[in-house]
């Protein structure tokens, strides 16, 4: 069957307007893609450019050739899927085996750049207001520098002395050199343009370009090449002394001076170490330079998850609560939903439509807003629940601490989730109840079954067949129900126990992982990804097993 054409499509030639549409859309896509490829080439990102060119050629081939119909319909979706699902999946998988995080946030080139950018200290001397320029003659990068004291103008290139520019060769900026100057008429102004040079806007520069400007050291004393003018935010150049020098061939940083903070002394050599840092002599235990790169660490993240003593207690607590939370949510919403469905499944009841509209409001109300509204309702001092429903004193700190202590916060989370979830369960159980043939009820009544027997032995089993997959889906959804937990309590109240990890009383796995990855000072993407993989395995396994079992369930009946 595979590859065999069952029916012949499109034997009639395409219409003229259809062809025009196709060419128009394809042309637009091509134009955008070519522009992007030019940018990639300009930034010297050769591999990315090559991949883009290959994809572009493939897309054009798919749409311009005759036949190959499936590819014509699948390509746009598949391209998106590859980038945002397959790549994301693979990347998460790969990251789990690396030390990617705020301390190791990119490749080695980026780490070297980060270290270089920080390897200086300011020394005494005149400072300059600068504009970034490119030499029209050879394309080299330079500063157009204006001395902030005497207003003299120079061109400064890397490793060279400043070159004076005569008065008729440059034009001044309209703006004051000093941004906070009060008198904008008479304030000092800096040179903006010079003949033979093109001024660059720092905001439009690429990452690569910026890095090159950051590398520029305009020397001021030929006898001491370690001292020079450099910039860190592209508007001013300050006399700075380099503290470290990078040797490209040896791949080492050598200290030129004693560090102000005592990390290194003149002459120390830093070599790349296995853990993604430059360390003294490249030895793991030695001092390191700030700014690391991403390296593969094998199973270390998984070891942390299973063996770290610091992590064990919080993790056990979080996992237990995740299951309790997901299962209780499914049970409470299902029971309440089913109860209401049974109560309303009565022919003579009037006003069902009215009740129904009111009851599905929590489901129709956007979830994130509901969470915020409940935060207000559950406020300890002045919340509606405490002051009106339970009649406690407004403003009193002795009121019931919803959301502020672990037990009450867990109760509150379950209560809010019940409010959010019961309408859905009501709707689906109503549908399932109505699809049970009424003959079954009548037969049971004739056989003398009581109402309870009828429900327990006939309706419930039949109901579960159609509802079980939805209950499992609901479990899987709540297992990772980030929104409700994070917006209600942020996973809090914070645990008072001492641990390296930021963990709170209502944290479920996914909020805990989110905190590891995105909050606090030590963002650890590697560890978070390892967790993500484990969560995926748990959820997928539970879903698969349960779906299998429900199928068996069906066969029995």
């Amino acid at each position: 069957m595979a590859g065999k054409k069952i029916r012949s499509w499109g034997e009639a030639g395409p219409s003229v307007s259809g062809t025009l549409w196709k060419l128009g859309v394809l042309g637009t896509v091509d134009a955008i893609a070519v522009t992007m490829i030019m940018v990639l080439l300009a930034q010297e990102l050769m591999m990315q450019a090559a991949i883009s060119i290959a994809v572009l050629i493939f897309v054009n081939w798919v749409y311009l050739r005759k036949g190959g119909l499936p590819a014509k319909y699948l390509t746009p979706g598949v391209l998106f899927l590859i980038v945002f699902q397959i790549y994301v999946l693979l990347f998460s998988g790969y990251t789990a085996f690396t030390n990617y995080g705020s301390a190791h946030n990119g490749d080695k080139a980026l780490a070297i750049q980060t270290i270089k950018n920080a390897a200086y200290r300011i020394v005494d001397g005149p400072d300059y207001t600068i504009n970034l320029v490119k030499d029209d003659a050879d394309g080299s990068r330079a500063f157009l520098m204006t001395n902030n004291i005497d207003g003299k103008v120079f061109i400064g290139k890397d490793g060279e002395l400043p070159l004076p520019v005569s008065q008729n060769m440059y034009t001044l900026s309209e703006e004051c050199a000093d941004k906070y100057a009060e008198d904008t008429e008479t304030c000092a102004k800096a040179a903006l343009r010079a003949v033979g040079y093109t001024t660059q806007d720092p905001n439009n520069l690429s990452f690569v370009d910026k890095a090159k400007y950051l590398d520029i050291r305009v020397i001021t004393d030929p006898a001491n090449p370690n001292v020079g003018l450099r910039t860190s935010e592209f508007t001013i150049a300050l006399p700075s002394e380099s503290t470290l020098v990078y040797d490209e061939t040896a791949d080492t940083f050598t200290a030129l001076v004693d560090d102000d903070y005592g990390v290194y002394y003149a002459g120390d050599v830093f070599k790349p170490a296995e853990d993604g840092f430059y360390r003294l002599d490249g030895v793991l235990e030695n001092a390191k330079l700030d700014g690391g790169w991403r390296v593969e660490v094998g199973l270390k993240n998984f070891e942390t998850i299973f063996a770290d003593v610091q992590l064990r207690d919080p993790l056990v607590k979080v996992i237990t609560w995740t299951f309790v939370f997901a299962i209780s949510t499914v049970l409470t919403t299902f029971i309440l939903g089913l109860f209401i469905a049974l109560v309303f499944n009565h022919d003579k009841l009037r006003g069902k439509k009215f009740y129904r509209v009111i009851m599905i409001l929590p489901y129709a109300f956007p979830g994130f807003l509901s969470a915020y509204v409940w935060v207000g309702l559950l406020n300890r001092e002045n919340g509606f629940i405490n002051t009106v429903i339970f009649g406690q004193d407004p403003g009193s700190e002795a009121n019931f601490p919803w959301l502020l202590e672990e037990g009450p916060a867990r109760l509150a989370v379950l209560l809010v989730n019940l409010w959010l979830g019961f309408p859905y369960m009501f709707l689906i159980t109503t549908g399932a109840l109505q699809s049970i043939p009424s003959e079954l009820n009548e037969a049971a009544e004739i056989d003398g079954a009581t109402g309870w027997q009828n429900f327990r032995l006939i309706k419930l089993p039949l109901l579960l067949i159609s509802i079980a997959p939805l209950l499992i889906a609901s479990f899987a959804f709540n297992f990772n129900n980030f929104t409700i937990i994070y917006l209600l309590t942020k996973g809090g109240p914070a645990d008072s126990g001492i641990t390296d990890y930021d963990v709170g009383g209502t944290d479920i796995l996914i909020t805990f992982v989110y905190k590891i990855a995105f909050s606090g000072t030590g963002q650890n993407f590697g560890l978070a990804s390892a967790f993500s993989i484990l969560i995926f395995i748990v959820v997928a396994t539970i879903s698969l097993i349960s779906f299998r079992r429900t199928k068996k369930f069906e066969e029995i009946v």
Partner: protein
Amino acid sequence: MSVAVKNNKRPFNIFRWFFSTGWRHLVGLAVCTFAIFPILYILSTSLYPNNDINNTTALFADISPANYISLFDQESRPFGRWYLNTVYIGIVTSVGSVFLSALAAFAFSRLRFKGRRPGLLSLILMQMFPSILGLVAIYSLLSDVGRVFPILGLNSQIGLMMVYLGGSLGAGTYLMYGFFNTVPKEIDEAATIDGASHARIFFSIILRLVAPILAVQMLLSYIGVTSDFILASILLSDPNSLTLATGLQQFISDPYSKDWSMFAAGAVLSALPSVALFLALQKYITSGLTGGAVKG
């Protein structure tokens, strides 16, 4: 549960009525109170003209549009802008994802090709990976792309929309595949014989036939996208580019300038379109629920 009282000629008996039907109204009222009081509370708060709302004990103690008016002239919290951003992102994403999923679903439903079955299977598998677990990868992807193309990177709405699109395609295609299979193949076979091209069959026949389903799909996707908090909160940071889900919390997150009345007014306006759409399309949405969709 259902006690059938068949004889209509018996005289009306209030006790019998209560035990058969009346108590059901009591349950209904209780549940409705539970369901609606948070919504009444936020509505009442939004209409209360004093910032110190938490000191009122009665709902709807005072009614004034003041909060709604001042909501639109907050300089540091451009509510109107957020509203437009949300509508814009919601519409582009829902239309885009429904269109792309429809294209792919058409291929899976109507064409036979190598890799069709593995393709369908991997779609099912892929939807099981919750997109929230890919946060790190998405963040890092956008931050890398943004270094070269700022317009597609972090803090860009286009970047965010692409992420939404990519994330919804797996599930969307699979759902749409099911819908397309309900359209009899004889219809497009007849059209082929009449000389219609494949594009014509797709655009003028299949898409038209499933148009109501496409519309509901689009609305569900719109509601899903506009209530997303986590992706938007990680990817957007400039106050002018925020969506409602990320912006509104600013009214209540800063402990020194909490403004519950402003938040309440904003919440009511933000919820209106979703609630209205939902109630209007109740019938379609609830019939689609048993198909396995779970709302976020």
